[in-house]
């Protein structure tokens, strides 16, 4: 058996990370968290999370960057805003989750078995191409990237939806000038100097 150190030295924590997250919109009061747990109590998905929302907040502000960015929690968050409206010090916990997701994608974190990240990326691409998200296109792309077994598992439902006219089989929804939306997004990327995932 290999013995591992299970606690971190303070010097290993990434304080800078905490300050950066606290700068994202909605996270300004991150350092005022009183650890009351109201967010975790309100969260309908917390029973599945490896870190509860309260712990995510605590660990983020202490600088446990690696632990937070590799947690399942940020990919399980369904953006229901239940935590956000409960927080007594006005931390928009949902927005903190978004900020963490962005960071995780930018830095290449993200557990493979959780498809949330793939979904976000498939969606991003579709809208960039067409200006709108055709559900069929997004889903096909997601499950193709996720693996054949996923595609097969979703097929019966897809067929039912197609039969009832709720899944356009061939057409793609597109705005008249998708280039306009592309320009919009690219202008911002230019300004930021960043690139899309």
């Amino acid at each position, binding site marked *: 058996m290999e013995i591992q150190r299970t606690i971190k030295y303070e010097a290993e924590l990434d304080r800078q990370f905490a300050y950066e997250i606290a700068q994202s919109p909605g996270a300004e009061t991150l350092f005022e968290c009183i650890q009351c747990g109201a967010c975790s109590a309100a969260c309908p998905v917390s029973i599945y999370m490896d870190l509860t929302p309260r712990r995510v907040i605590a660990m983020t502000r202490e600088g446990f960057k690696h632990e937070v960015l590799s947690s399942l929690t940020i990919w399980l968050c*369904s*953006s229901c805003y239940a935590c956000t409206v409960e927080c007594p010090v006005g931390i928009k916990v949902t927005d903190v989750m978004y900020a963490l*997701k962005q960071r995780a994608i930018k830095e290449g974190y993200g557990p493979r078995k959780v498809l949330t990240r793939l*979904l976000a990326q498939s969606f991003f691409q579709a809208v960039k191409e067409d*200006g709108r998200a*055709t559900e069929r296109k997004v889903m096909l792309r997601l499950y193709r990237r996720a693996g054949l077994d996923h595609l097969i598992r979703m097929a019966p439902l897809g067929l039912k939806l197609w039969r009832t006219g709720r899944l356009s089989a061939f057409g793609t929804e597109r705005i008249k000038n998708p280039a306009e939306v592309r320009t919009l997004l690219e202008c*911002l990327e230019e300004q930021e100097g960043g690139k*899309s995932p």
Partner: protein
Amino acid sequence: MSGYAYYPGCSLLGTGKSYDESVRAVFEALGVPLQELENWNCCGATAYSSIDECTAFALAARNLALAHRRGDPILAPCPNCYLVLTKTQRYLEQYPEIRQRIVQTLERLGLNLGHDVPIRHPLQVLSETPGLEAIRQKIQKPLKGLRVAPYYGCLLARPYPIVEDPWNTTILEDFIRVTGAEVVPYAYRTRCCGGALTGVVREAGLRMVYILLREALRQGAQAVVTTCPLCQFNLEAFQDQALRKNGIQERIPVLYFTQLLGLALGLPPKKLGLHRHLIPFQPQRKALQEAVA
């Protein structure tokens, strides 16, 4: 002013088609003018915020600018669109640096963001024009005896509620009662349906769907009425799996509030998109069965 700038959003062109159809039909029947916002683009939904906040705001802002140019309030039936558009508007007021970037980018496309295009949900609009009383006068086929669970979902209740007091509001219940149907107590009316989780983390998503459906059945509801295409989709398309897994045989139709209203106004079911549903809604047959029993 050419009526509301109707913003269907991507879901209403696909899985939520019957929401689109029933919103249009009901607005027409009630004489509230609406015209699609020309060349609208995807609001960005939750996926964009996961990638980059600023591009998410930019996508939503383009729609705000289009509506501003037209000079009409936005009508957004999808709560996700409603939230993203509203949140963008609020954040751009609150964070001038982000606003600056977005405004400049939009200018390059010849668009002007404007400041306060109203963003409204059909529940709000119809409760004012024509108003519940006027709607009551127009009811032709009251849905007597139908027991309905009112399900708001998350985003009409928080974080930017469509009513002043989201904890005690009865705006959806009032609409259901106007149709002549009965409202069952439904404690989970603003509990999350799981959103995209059914598609990406199946076990968690199915459990959330199950909790909502079980409660509706326990209260004796014969239909769940929603205001959200994602809620409708989750509760209907994953119902079989969620309930079967827990040994429940019963199934319960999940409708949009505009469909219920449309039926009571005497509109043909087909015009309301009812034929697109996977779990058929047959109130007449239900009532008959009960009369026999």
